[in-house]
């Protein structure tokens, strides 16, 4: 069920320049089941800005009724959000969409998780859930530069973790695909989230295995009603809505 709730800020901190980790508490968390879903966040009380902002769920904790998101404070809404303090609340609509299929990989098998920049966060809950069921995980995470890297230790605690930075200031110089070409292809499936060019590169090079892609698009409603976030899913007028059919699709299901 989708819930709209005024949630309590449990903690809020800057992980890297302009990258914030926000943990919220409330009953809405009870509805979170899958990794890779997202929430739609109202970043101010009034009309400025008007629309909600879609942000992925990075991790959730049923026991504490809390969940965490990691976001870049880039535009008006996210900058306002970044000012919220622990005495305040945030209006959240969620959980939304369909996330990564944890059961695509069996216990004992290996999964490759590939994230780019602000697409990295949803892989964290996924990795936790895969590890919990006995899957071995390999993480390949791409960032612009060393200072932009976040959650390296958290991922490393779950499994092998490779970092790529565009400027080479940390890990491999280049893109996630530069790391991947040197990896043994012992993994059963790839889960990925990041900028469209990265997803396209994965689709082009790695479609032989089950490949799951988490997509982004500008949204209106976030719940499937406004047709803002559609993508083609084949010939003619056939389509998928990223907000309610996705954001995660199997490669080939939609046209990037």
């Amino acid at each position, binding site marked *: 069920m*989708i819930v709209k709730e005024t949630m309590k800020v449990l903690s809020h901190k800057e992980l890297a320049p302009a990258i914030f980790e926000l943990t919220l508490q409330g009953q809405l968390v009870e509805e979170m089941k899958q990794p890779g879903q997202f929430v739609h966040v109202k970043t101010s009380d009034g009309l400025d800005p008007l*629309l909600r902002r879609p942000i992925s769920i990075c991790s959730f904790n049923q026991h504490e009724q809390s969940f965490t998101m990691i976001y870049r404070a880039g535009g008006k809404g996210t900058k306002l959000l970044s000012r919220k303090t622990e005495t305040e609340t945030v209006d959240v609509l969620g959980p939304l969409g369909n996330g990564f299929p944890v059961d695509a990989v069996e216990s004992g098998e290996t999964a490759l998780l590939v994230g780019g920049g602000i697409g990295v966060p949803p892989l964290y809950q996924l990795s936790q859930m895969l590890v919990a069921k006995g899957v071995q995980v390999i993480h390949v995470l791409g960032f612009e530069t060393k200072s932009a890297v976040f959650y390296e230790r958290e991922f490393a605690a779950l499994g092998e973790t490779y970092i790529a930075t565009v400027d080479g200031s940390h890990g491999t110089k280049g893109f996630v695909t530069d790391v991947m070409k040197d990896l043994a292809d012992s993994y059963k499936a790839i889960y990925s989230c990041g900028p469209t060019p990265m997803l396209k590169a994965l689709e082009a090079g790695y479609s032989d295995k089950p490949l799951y892609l988490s997509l982004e698009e*500008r949204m209106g409603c976030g719940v499937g009603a406004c047709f803002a976030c559609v993508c083609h899913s084949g010939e003619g007028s056939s*389509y998928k809505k990223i907000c309610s059919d996705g954001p995660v699709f199997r490669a080939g299901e939609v046209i990037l």
Partner: protein
Amino acid sequence: MSKLSIELPGLSLKNPIIPASGCFGFGREYSQFYDLSKLGAIMIKATTPEPRFGNPTPRVAETDAGMLNAIGLQNPGLKKVISEELTWLSNHDVPIIANIAGSQIEDYVKVAREISQASNVHALELNISCPNVKEGGITFGTDPEVAKKVTKAVKDVSSVPVYVKLSPNVTNIVEMAKAVEAGGADGLTMINTLVGMRLHLKTGKPIIANRTGGLSGPAIKPVALRMIYEVSQQTSLPIIGMGGITNAEDVIEFFYAGASAVAVGTANFVDPFVCPTIIDELPALLDELGFDHISQCTGRSWK
């Protein structure tokens, strides 16, 4: 709740709150949040004869107190709308106002004839004001003669009353209203979106793939109110008002201007519960303002 009941051509509304076309799909999504029978009526997404994918994405952009959209009339087409969507909706006790669109008069006629037969479709909303399609849409809504013609053609084949949705992108809105009145319209819905644009700071290019889009939300409310104020004094057609409504006070303001019911669009995206919330808040607000019935508010600005 009898303070809120409204009678309009073809429509017996429990209350005057109607989700606006294109902002509520065919109701399925919002039925996750509340019982659709609570609503006065539902204006479904524009329906065209054939399925349409619509425009390329991005299709929306935020603006100050508003948003732009260029969906491009995406819809599953007349056949599916009738067989799947309207059938599903018929399980709810709520009248449907079918928003119909097309590229040429024949399209409107075809959709009107067939969709008006559906048992839960109590009225049509003739969308001659969509700014986001190359053919049809707004061109029908900016020339009074053409508007009159398409109204008449649709009236001739529709088995339910026809409301014409006016575009605000005109020099003279009263002239447009009078033209569709002359064409036989049973009512008006207004306003559709204002044509607007946003550009990307980094690339300099339009944010919306279609370049321009329709501006909706609170930003356009003053324009909607002014147009309803003008038109309600110059025609005898009932008006379903819309444009930026987000709360019960806004509803009253639209009634004062001359509306007899209202539609709520963009606000659903901000708060999926906005329609039932408004419905719940209206009776107390009417008490506070000293009205026994919401219809007493209609046209109070000029009566």
